[in-house]
């Protein structure tokens, strides 16, 4: 299977495309990774950097400085990374030997000021060795509890003084609620300017998420109908087939609402609903995203339990492939009330979207892995024709984020034969069919953008706060009166609890079954 996949990939590669994707080359610089001994570094960051290197998008004046408490040497760091990426390294040995010469390591405890001062000296030495010109990107791949203090020690050591030459990338979650996000923003902004802070949400690194902007604002046919006059409702779904896997420790304290909705689904919501920016400029885009999030609210803020359903997967699957229930997963409290599924209804109080319901849902152990945005249009005012399915199907525009990336449009046509009966058909656009090439992994795009100093795909402080504020009534309810927002069990491998269907049934609607 593996070999065949490689052969297929080879056959499908456009030889004229090789080497052309070099539009933006990153300026000379040093990327400093805190938490370099952790999983994210060898699973995502170094592979993404190696990919950028192989695409020739990294300058020759480039270095990666890994930092963690472990007393590794440069050589040890290189060999550990090589071990972790053994498959890629064996396929591209010569490239790896060049790339690994850019890898350095410094034992640093980010909480210790003297360690960070010493780091400054090491960075100056790297500047001289690799001509990285004092440009630095600091990637905080550390526990969220250290984001604030980490920024402080960097600032105290003078490493964030130059807003044009130093940047900090912060992983999610950015805060646990509105209050903690606001406090963290205050700390971080006291250490540097907002333009230096890159809050990463890897969903925004997905080609198809970015395509929402292009589809909306590079075509004239969509924008005139992209509003309450034509759109009846919008569904945003992010479904996973996997369970909690090895993340029980983190997931138990976050749940689906914090893990998926506040960031990924909310970003999809913002891109789908924002106004057109005046120009393609990071601040113009982020202004519009922040504005629409500030205008968003739960459908019923007074009684939030009426517009939100929480669920938790129980055991399911088939006798041949049984699936464990959430509470029986390793590391999970057997009495856990953490939600693995959440569905909710929102409104956006502005001229474009007033009265249009937005339904968001996400869950683990659902039947399919998929993310999509579905815009359902209003029905034709008069039904002139008999519909083959009983009633005409409303037009739907489906933006498929993953997998089978692309877009689809459902519309009515005349069914063949005598008479004038209508039936729905699908029109598809598929990234695979049109482009063939797999798109970059999200981290490749986002790391490159951070090093380029392009914050378009990163969330700004006001966006993060607006997103947390949107869900505050729910978070408070879960905290103060969890019985009002009970956990509905659902069988693993199904589309979530029946209560989530009722949320839409009240309006005579149904979740789209992809």
């Amino acid at each position: 299977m593996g070999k065949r996949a490689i052969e297929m990939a080879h056959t499908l590669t456009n030889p004229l495309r090789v080497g052309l994707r070099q539009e933006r080359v990153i300026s000379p610089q040093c990327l400093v990774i805190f938490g370099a001994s952790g999983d994210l570094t060898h699973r995502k960051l170094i592979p993404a950097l190696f990919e950028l290197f192989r695409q020739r998008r990294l300058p020759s004046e480039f270095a990666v400085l890994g930092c963690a408490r472990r007393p590794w040497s440069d050589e040890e760091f290189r060999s550990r990374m090589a071990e972790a990426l053994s498959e890629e390294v064996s396929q591209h040995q010569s490239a790896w030997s060049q790339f690994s010469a850019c890898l350095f390591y410094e034992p640093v405890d980010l909480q210790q000021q003297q360690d960070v001062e010493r780091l400054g000296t090491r960075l100056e030495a790297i500047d001289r060795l690799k001509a990285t010109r004092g440009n630095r990107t600091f990637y905080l791949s550390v526990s969220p509890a250290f984001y604030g203090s980490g920024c402080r020690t960097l600032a105290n050591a003078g490493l964030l003084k130059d807003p044009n030459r130093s940047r900090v990338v912060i992983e999610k979650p950015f805060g646990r609620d509105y209050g903690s996000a606001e406090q963290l923003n205050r700390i971080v902004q006291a250490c540097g300017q907002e333009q230096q802070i890159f809050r990463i949400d890897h969903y925004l690194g997905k080609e198809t998420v970015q395509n929402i902007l292009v589809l909306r604002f590079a075509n004239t046919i969509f924008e005139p109908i992209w509003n309450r006059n034509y759109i009846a409702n919008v569904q945003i779904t992010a479904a996973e087939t996997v369970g909690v896997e090895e993340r029980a420790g983190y997931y138990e304290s976050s749940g689906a609402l914090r893990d998926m909705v506040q960031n990924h689904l909310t970003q999809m919501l913002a891109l789908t609903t924002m106004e057109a920016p005046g120009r393609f400029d990071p601040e113009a885009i982020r202004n519009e995203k922040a504005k629409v999030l500030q205008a968003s609210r739960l459908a019923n803020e007074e009684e939030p339990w009426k517009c939100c359903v929480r669920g938790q997967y129980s055991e399911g699957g088939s006798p041949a492939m049984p699936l464990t229930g959430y509470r029986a997963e390793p590391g999970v409290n057997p009495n856990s009330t953490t939600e693995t599924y959440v569905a909710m209804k929102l409104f956006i109080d502005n001229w474009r979207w007033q009265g249009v319901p937005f339904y968001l849902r996400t869950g683990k152990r659902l039947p399919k892995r998929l993310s999509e945005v579905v815009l359902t249009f209003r029905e034709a005012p008069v039904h002139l024709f008999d519909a083959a399915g009983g009633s005409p199907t409303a037009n739907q525009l489906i933006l498929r984020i993953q997998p089978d990336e692309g877009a689809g449009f459902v519309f009515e046509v005349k069914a063949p034969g005598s008479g004038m009966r209508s039936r729905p058909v699908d029109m598809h656009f598929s990234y695979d069919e049109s482009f063939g090439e797999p798109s970059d992994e999200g981290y490749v795009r986002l790391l490159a953008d951070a090093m380029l100093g392009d914050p378009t795909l990163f969330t700004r402080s006001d966006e993060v706060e607006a997103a947390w504020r949107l869900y505050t009534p729910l978070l408070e309810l879960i905290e103060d009166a969890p019985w009002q927002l009970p956990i509905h069990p659902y069988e693993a491998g199904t589309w979530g609890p029946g209560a989530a269907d009722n949320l839409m049934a009240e309006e005579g609607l149904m979740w789209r079954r992809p």
Partner: protein
Amino acid sequence: MAPQLTLQAPLALPPSEVPGYLNNLWSEGLLGSAGAATFTLLVWEPSWLQQQLIRTGRIDGPISGLLNEELLEAAREAIPACGLPCSTAPTATELAWALGQQPGEHTADDLRGQFVDRAISAHRPRRLITLAPTLAADKPLETLVAAYCPLPEERSGSEDACGDVVVLRGGMGALHQGLAMLQPLIEPDLPCWVWWNGSMDESPELLEALAVPPRRLVVDSSSGDPRRCLDLLVERIATGQAVNDLNWLRLRSWRESLAMAFDPPSRQSALDRVVQLDIDMEGHHPVKGLLLAAWIADRLGWHLQSSYWIPGDEGQQGIGAEFERNDGESVQVRLMPVPVGITKTHPGALVGLRLICAPPGQAPLCVILCSESGGCMRLEAGGAASMELAEEVVPLPNESEEMEMARLLGGGHDSTNPLLAAAAPLAAKLLPQ
């Protein structure tokens, strides 16, 4: 983006005093400031066309070294006046030479090296050294020096990243003598870029002396004798030096458009069955077309069998070639000069491309790319009715030389683009002897 003039009028110094003056400046005069740890940019800036247009009174000064609309318009007007063919590009070396035969004694201030394009200055060169040869071959060497630091409101943080500008101006003989003072002016620890912003024909010994590896060389293979341009590219690439060619960079939109035509997987298998490639170009400078043909041949794994001249209209010759595909079948390639109304800025701009594929058991596929500025009726004519036709318009590049240069500087490329490294030797073989 408007160019910036250095804020301070450069100081004229005797050449022997320049290194000492700069050392002194950095060690004492700018105490507390650090030189930007960036790169040295060494520019060969003859600007013969601008100098001749000014001398003959066709434009006013100053001599800036920058191509602007006024200059290009005057150059286009001068082409017929000098008796050159209409297909001559305004930046063709023949035009500057022809203008040199005409009378005129107009003069203007020479500000070469003092105009720094904002795109380039944004990269804060540590030292910008300009070699500015004058029309008067016997003019003695003049050296001008200016240091600059960001204004307080432009400063970006902890350290001032200051740089300096050095201009060496004089006749060719004087500039040759001035070479000795260059070496100590180039910071050994920083990358050095050599931008040969003139014809690749001229002053080979000076180019040899300036572009010593590992300095990174930037040339423009649309300027100079095609054979010399390609040989020089090949020779330099073979040494392992980082070579960047602005003419190659200008092919970006053509390469991108052609790749785009074959992005759908359903079309990709047709690339194994190409039978014919036609490229139409402006004028008689075939290097750009050759580089494009060579890139396609290299990417598709074709082997060159032969190349030959094809007689064309008005004495202009085309180039024909035969390649062998990996499956042993033959591919015919033709590059033809075609007449155009108004030429583009640089010699040998592309007008159109046609690629015909004949996959077995399917209708032939014909991909035609046309330049935005004109049609390509020659390529559209004849026998395409039975083929699946894919036609695209290639946008004109709209970036100045300085923007392209800034892109290179920002990227810090220390090696030749592998696509260029593969295409240049093949393009050299494609050009018939």
